[in-house]
């Protein structure tokens, strides 16, 4: 059981991807999946990583997502065993579910995002993802991706053991990239990680830009945790 949501934020232009699976380390698909000011793709099934760079290169040279998808399929003898979604910098989407997959595997194309749902994913889970993501357009993309995963959690036949969210803004590296590779309740663990990470994210950025003014991380953490009950390190 694996599902993924690939999206572009209509307000900011950020590109993002959320994924969850009963397999381990599903977030390993993030490498080279997204590219700033270009778009991105996700491939489920087999060893999908090789599609990532090719899809971004084709998007960068100007191919529309539908053409990129054609190229990925033409380049891959096993493409009928895979699911693929592609999004470009305009939010245009294309998706593919291979004919060799079970009938329960499906994808959904929506304005500015696509959902891939592998075998044993309930249609109600896909609906929950779509409803949540559509309803949260005012929030930041990374928060929307996480909320979508949380909305899907109740529809999972078995809890995902690994999950991740990644988003790219205008830098050539991710601005959010969080994973849980092995956990009994991976979506909840990703929420815990995300909430802990948020205040540090700003700190890490500021520390790198202005090292001379930065306080040590330990002091920052102590200040942060001092205001909380039951979570002191």
């Amino acid at each position: 059981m694996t599902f993924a949501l690939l999206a572009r934020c209509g307000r900011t232009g950020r590109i993002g991807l959320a994924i969850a699976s009963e397999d381990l380390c599903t977030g390993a698909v993030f490498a080279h999946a997204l590219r700033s000011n270009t778009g991105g793709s996700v491939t489920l099934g087999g060893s999908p990583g090789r599609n990532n760079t090719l899809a971004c290169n084709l998007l960068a040279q100007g191919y529309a997502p539908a053409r990129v998808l054609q190229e990925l399929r033409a380049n891959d003898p096993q493409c009928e065993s895979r699911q693929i979604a592609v999004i470009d910098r305009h939010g245009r989407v294309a998706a593919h579910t291979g004919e060799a997959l079970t009938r329960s595997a499906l994808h959904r194309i929506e304005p500015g995002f696509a959902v891939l749902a592998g075998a044993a994913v309930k249609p109600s889970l896909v609906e929950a993802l779509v409803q949540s993501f559509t309803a949260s357009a005012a929030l930041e993309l990374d928060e929307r991706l996480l909320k979508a995963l949380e909305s899907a959690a109740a529809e999972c036949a078995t809890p995902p053991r690994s999950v991740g969210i990644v988003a790219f803004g205008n830098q050539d590296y991710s601005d959010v990239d969080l994973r849980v590779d092995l956990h009994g309740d991976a979506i909840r663990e990703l929420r815990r990680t995300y909430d802990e990470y948020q205040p540090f994210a700003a700190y890490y950025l500021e520390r790198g830009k202005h090292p001379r003014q930065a306080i040590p991380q330990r002091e920052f953490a102590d200040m942060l945790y001092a205001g909380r009950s039951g979570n002191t390190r």
Partner: protein
Amino acid sequence: MTYSIVARCPRTGRFGVGTATFSIACGRRNESVRANVGISKSQAFYDRATDPLVLNLLAQGYTPQYALGVLEAQDPDFQYRQLGIIDRAGTIGVHTGRDIGPWAGHAIGPQCVAFGNGLAGPQVVEGILGGFMAEPDAALEDRLLRAIEGGRDAGGQASNGQPRPERSAWLCVVDRGEHPLLDLRVDLHDRAVSQLRRVFEACDRGHLRVDTR
């Protein structure tokens, strides 16, 4: 506070990085690894733009040492940065800025460098190298994990004499294809290095086995 190793496998040419740190989600820094080019892993008061620049320079044919010179010339805060670089020839570049604070430093081994800051002392980077060299014929990913465990077991991170927990850890190996062969993360855990070992033992690593090349 962070400790890392970057290395090249002398048998296969694969590159790998292992990291453990108090910071959350250190493995999000996947811009630090580039197949067929090398690894540049910056830490301490790092700037995310550093590693892509270094790798772009390596890809053009510049040496790690030259790339360090470029950084030093353009970065007024260079003495707050720490980074380790390895290129496809196995050449090492490493810099530990003098303003990072105690204890920070590095140790160079054959086609590898261990480096860290906010550590218990120089025994930590020596422990990393010791772990890496314990079984020199083992697979790169095994050696990298042993290296990180060696750093932890040698005292790991400390500030003001107090040990500090590793909250996140990362193990990544890349071969000639752009997509990593192995990319394992623990983003937030009380004992991140032990958890990384647990993920490592649980995940399927069959595709990492090497035929004779």
